């Protein structure tokens, strides 16, 4: 288990991390969310030993993370990092060797991962000749080539086409099944809830929310109710329900989490024949926006929430 406990870090006058705590269990994948500058990359770099922390501590399986322990981690930095003039194959072999694999094992691992991320056709091309999407596949392969126990992936999905996203998701799922722990950051919230059940949301160097995605959504103090009618209707919802969207034959409402869906459905049924009914908690994007204190007004539909959140 990765245990990040009360970690603080200042850069001059700027407080980058203000007591960040999070855990990633064995075989668990945790999505790391937060606006730009919230401290995601700093936390990840602290785990990788790339910055010295001012306070708190970070452990892996209960032990402090030494250089030897870190060699069993796989890391994908936000600003990618590869030798531009080295071939894809040489690059993978080199990093596998650095992680302690024998020359033969390193060679086989390189081939395996080039196949796995689908860049085997470019094995002998220099990395700089590859498209950014393909470079990113190679970067992932570098993080995985030594079969690490913990994967730290900073924005692994950014800049990938849908096909590559699917490939990346499949690989992560396989890694989890194999018992690897994963901490990844992302701006693409829909992807986060696709891939991981657990999220940590940071804002201004502090963890503002964490837990199971479903729990977090359930914990929200409002719900969305969508009702579709067979015929046009001018039905008005009872009480303090807020109309989010109104169509000739349908309505979308924002209601309190404690309101009774049965009563709502019965009330609507009196106005006309109901053919569709949904009563759902807000999705992750809205939970996220609410958690970091951004206004959700003006967001017409939860499904329209922009997936890229920029501060």
């Amino acid at each position: 288990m990765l245990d990040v406990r009360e970690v603080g870090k200042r850069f001059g006058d700027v407080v980058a991390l203000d007591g960040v705590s999070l855990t990633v269990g064995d075989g668990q994948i945790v999505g790391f969310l937060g606006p730009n500058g919230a401290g995601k990359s700093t936390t990840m770099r602290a785990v990788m030993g790339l910055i010295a922390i001012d306070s708190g501590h970070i452990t892996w399986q209960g032990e402090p993370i030494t250089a030897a322990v870190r060699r069993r981690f796989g890391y994908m930095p936000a600003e990618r990092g590869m030798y531009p003039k080295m071939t894809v194959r040489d690059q993978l072999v080199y990093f596998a060797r650095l992680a302690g694999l024998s020359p033969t094992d390193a060679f086989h691992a390189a081939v395996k991962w080039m196949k796995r991320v689908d860049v085997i056709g470019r094995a002998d091309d220099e990395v700089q000749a590859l498209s950014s999407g393909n470079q990113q596949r190679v970067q992932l392969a570098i993080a995985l080539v030594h079969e690490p126990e913990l994967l730290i992936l900073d924005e692994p999905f950014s800049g990938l086409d849908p096909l590559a996203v699917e490939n990346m998701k499949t690989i992560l799922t396989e890694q989890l099944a194999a018992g690897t722990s994963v901490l990844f950051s992302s701006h693409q919230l829909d992807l986060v809830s696709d891939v991981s059940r657990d999220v940590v949301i940071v804002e201004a160097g502090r963890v503002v929310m964490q837990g199971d995605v479903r729990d977090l959504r359930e914990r929200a103090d409002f719900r969305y109710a969508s009702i579709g009618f067979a015929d046009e209707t001018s039905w008005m919802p009872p009480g303090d329900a807020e109309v989010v969207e109104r169509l000739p034959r349908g309505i979308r409402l924002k209601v309190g989490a404690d309101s009774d869906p049965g009563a709502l459905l019965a009330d609507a049924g009196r106005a006309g024949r109901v053919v569709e009914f949904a009563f759902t908690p807000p999705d992750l994007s809205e939970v996220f926006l609410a958690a970091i204190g951004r206004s959700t007004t003006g967001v017409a539909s939860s499904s329209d929430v922009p997936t890229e959140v920029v501060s």
Partner: protein
Amino acid sequence: MVWLVMSREVRQRVRSRGFKVTTAFLCIAVLGGGVLSRAVRGDDEPTRYDVAVIGAAPQGFADTVQAAAKTLDIKVRLTIGTDAATAERGVRDGKLDAAIDPAAGTLIADSAPSDQLAAVLATGWQSSASAAAAREAGLDDDEIAAILSPAGLSTTLIGTDDTDDDNLATAVGFATAVLLFISINAFGGMVLTGVVEEKSSGVVEVLLAHLRAHQLLAGKVFGIGTVAMIQFSATLAAGVVALRISGTSVPGSLWVGLPTTLLWFVVGFVLYSTLFALAGSFVSRQEDAQSAAAPISMVFTVAYLTVFILGANPHSTAARIVSVLPPFAPLLMPLRVSTGAASVVEIVLAAVLLLAATFGMLRLAGAVYGRTLLHRGSRLRWKQALRLKSSS
């Protein structure tokens, strides 16, 4: 770890076209220098002529021809007893330079024979004719020999040949200083851009997950150093071959100076390229690399210019003092060793100081490198960098 980093550097660099081209160019240039100097000095190998004698040679002809050839520094190979047809064919085919027909008293040649050959053959002919006449006049062989071969002039040299040696040693000393400067600059520059490349491409973040900064530094400096040494030794070897080709007599101090130059090069390279690596770790963009390295380049260039100021008088007190100082020693000392101007005490002192300075530099760089390497944003200053160490 260091070994892995080193071998990556060596593989990547040696495989590059730039390395192959520059190495080939340097070797060819140095060898070309040797060939050129030989061409200018003229060929030392005596020219050889093939001459056939039709029928029997006159008595004493062969001996006189050989003696005359020797004084003119040419070689004449006489084939005696050839028949006329074969001799003529040989001359026509160019296999023979000339043929002599003693019976007819003619010299047969395809075109006018060289002055040297003509003179040698004429001397032989005349002297054997004179001997025959003298014999007919009743003189015995001893008397004939006394008449025909008076004692020649012998030469006594009263000048010493040392100036030539000195000039050559100085010239080679300067040439190696130029080579040292070029190599340390080129490969030090490679270390500089290599470090900046790792930083600007972000690969350093992934690397440091696997190894320590000082391992990365050592691997880079020693790896590129190995490549530099391959090129430098190849060029030196070409230099030795060039000296042999040129046919010049080589003073003994050079045979000590040239191989030990390699040692000065290795330590000098490590000293300067560690500084270059450190400077490279201060910046994040390739455009800033040169300005970060400017102070080092300046010191190095001053050291280089000093070679030309003090190298002409390698025995002077100034040369003695300056060549012992670590920043200057790698460039100036090889020249003073090659010219035989450096005493053993000076050499040992310079070596000890240089090694100590290099070791200290490696220690310092190892302590700071990890932090400067991960520093992001604007260029670090030397003062800031050194402070990073104390704040660790």
